[in-house]
């Protein structure tokens, strides 16, 4: 159920936080054998936090809309006393002695932690097919991946186990599972949510954000978790204004890229995207053709930055090759072979591309694209087949296809949300991208597109 609705019911004493936690735990335990969305379920802690929320309500203490709301954390958000694995065997026994900033804030807001969700190993991949903790499965079709790396969070929200879950997004890892599972996933502007106490993958690309049932719910979570944190060197000083002031799409300039985002898109996604554009136009938005400055190049830049940063971080474990899954190990090996000059030049190209993207915002307020060009692949599927011009088919690595439309936005550090694009069949996502620190507008537009 939506956060907004539950918050109302809690305050009307129609339901208690303990009852919500019990119902959430019932659903989690019922679905866990089928979906494997969780690595750790925190039954006892959940009921303790729920009782505290009820006691606070009884005393007239109201900590805001998240008080008493069941949620989950991707298992790379450190939680004191609760195992935090990062989805890897390397950290299988890691029990942190401190909390990450996001968990600190959610505890202060009175939210109730139900457990830690499954993910792609080290958050370094998009399938959530984890060799150590098992494959997370898509609630719409358990033979398919939920996307990743925040696959457990996406599955838990989409299956109604929790009202919201936290994910991390280094190359699309919040937006992809949101698209494949049919929920909302928001990646804020880089620096808006503290990364303190989360397990890093690519520090200059890592973003923390919520996965929810609605865009309005994402905004509620963002109000609780955003803000400056001295402990995170990339944290941005100053609070964002979460009031966008927008209650309709009238006059909104929606940039629709003429290049890149229309090629190699499966018909179901292309059709649903086209319908979304028509809905936006009918609601008063202006559709502005724009040229997106070379997302393909930015994807290349992003892969070099990510592989370099991830391999540097994991270098201390290079004598434990047998403890990594094959796909992650192959990426870590590649990163070890890249030159320092390539990393620096990739970061210089990042500066250049960010400047080129700044010009786009003089033409458009937001940009619409599909989140992923395909629907959720089958578990174990490695390639997508596309019809080439010469009528022969050409294969594309599932990982590259899945991240093709989202990775560049991490390199640019821009806010972006994925919302469900269609109501039947396998889900697909609409990606709404905004200029830096225009997070409130992105979520407001997403809410208006939800209808």
């Amino acid at each position: 159920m939506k956060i907004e609705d539950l918050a109302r019911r809690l305050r009307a004493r129609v339901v208690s936080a303990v009852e919500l936690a019990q119902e959430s735990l019932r659903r989690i335990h019922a679905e866990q054998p089928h979906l494997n969305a969780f690595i750790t379920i925190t039954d006892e802690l959940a009921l303790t936090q729920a009782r505290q929320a009820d006691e606070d309500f009884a005393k007239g203490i109201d900590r805001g809309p998240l008080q008493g709301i069941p949620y989950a954390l991707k298992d790379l958000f450190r939680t004191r006393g609760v195992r935090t694995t990062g989805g890897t065997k390397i950290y299988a026994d890691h029990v942190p002695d401190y909390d990450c900033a996001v968990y600190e804030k959610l505890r202060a807001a009175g939210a109730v932690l139900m457990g830690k969700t499954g993910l792609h190993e080290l958050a370094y991949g998009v399938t959530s097919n984890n060799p150590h903790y098992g494959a997370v499965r898509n609630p719409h079709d358990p033979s398919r991946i939920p996307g990743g790396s925040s696959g457990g969070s996406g599955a838990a929200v989409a299956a109604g186990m929790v009202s919201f879950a936290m994910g991390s997004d280094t190359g699309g890892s919040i937006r992809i599972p949101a698209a494949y599972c049919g929920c909302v996933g928001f990646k804020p502007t880089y620096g808006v949510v503290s990364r303190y106490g989360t397990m890093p993958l690519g520090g200059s690309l890592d973003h923390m954000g919520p996965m929810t049932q609605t865009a309005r719910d994402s905004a509620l979570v963002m109000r609780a978790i955003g803000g400056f944190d001295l402990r995170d060197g990339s944290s941005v000083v100053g609070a964002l204004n979460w009031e966008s002031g927008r209650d309709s799409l009238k006059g909104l300039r929606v940039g629709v890229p003429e290049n890149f985002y229309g090629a190699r898109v499966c018909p179901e996604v292309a059709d649903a995207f086209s319908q979304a554009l028509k809905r936006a136009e009918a609601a008063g938005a202006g559709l502005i053709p724009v040229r997106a400055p070379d997302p393909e190049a930015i994807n290349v830049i992003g892969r070099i930055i990510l592989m370099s940063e991830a391999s540097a971080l994991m270098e201390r474990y290079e004598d434990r090759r047998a403890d990594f899954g094959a796909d992650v190990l192959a990426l870590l090996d590649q990163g070890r072979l890249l030159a320092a000059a390539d990393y620096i030049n990739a970061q210089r190209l990042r500066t250049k591309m960010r400047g080129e993207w700044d010009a786009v915002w003089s033409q458009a307020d937001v940009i619409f694209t599909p989140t992923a060009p395909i629907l959720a692949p089958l578990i174990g599927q490695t390639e997508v087949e596309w019809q080439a011009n010469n009528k022969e088919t050409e294969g594309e690595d599932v990982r590259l296809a899945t991240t093709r439309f989202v990775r560049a936005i991490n390199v640019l550090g821009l806010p972006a949300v994925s919302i469900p694009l269609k109501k039947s069949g396998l889900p697909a996502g609409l990606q709404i991208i905004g200029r830096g620190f225009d997070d409130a507008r992105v979520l407001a537009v997403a809410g208006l597109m939800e209808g």
Partner: protein
Amino acid sequence: MTDWKALAAARCPDIPSDAVERIVPSLEKLEAAFRPLAAQLTEDVEAAVVFTNVAGGER
């Protein structure tokens, strides 16, 4: 272009040769896409690496 096999043998001898064989095609494609981009850079473009001169950070 880089001789990835020779580089791996010299710099990361712990990576088994069959593992190197598997990653070389990916590295070759990445390098082929990246070199022309890097060649466009002019000396005035600074890297986007963040250095913050404050106390704190990861425990």
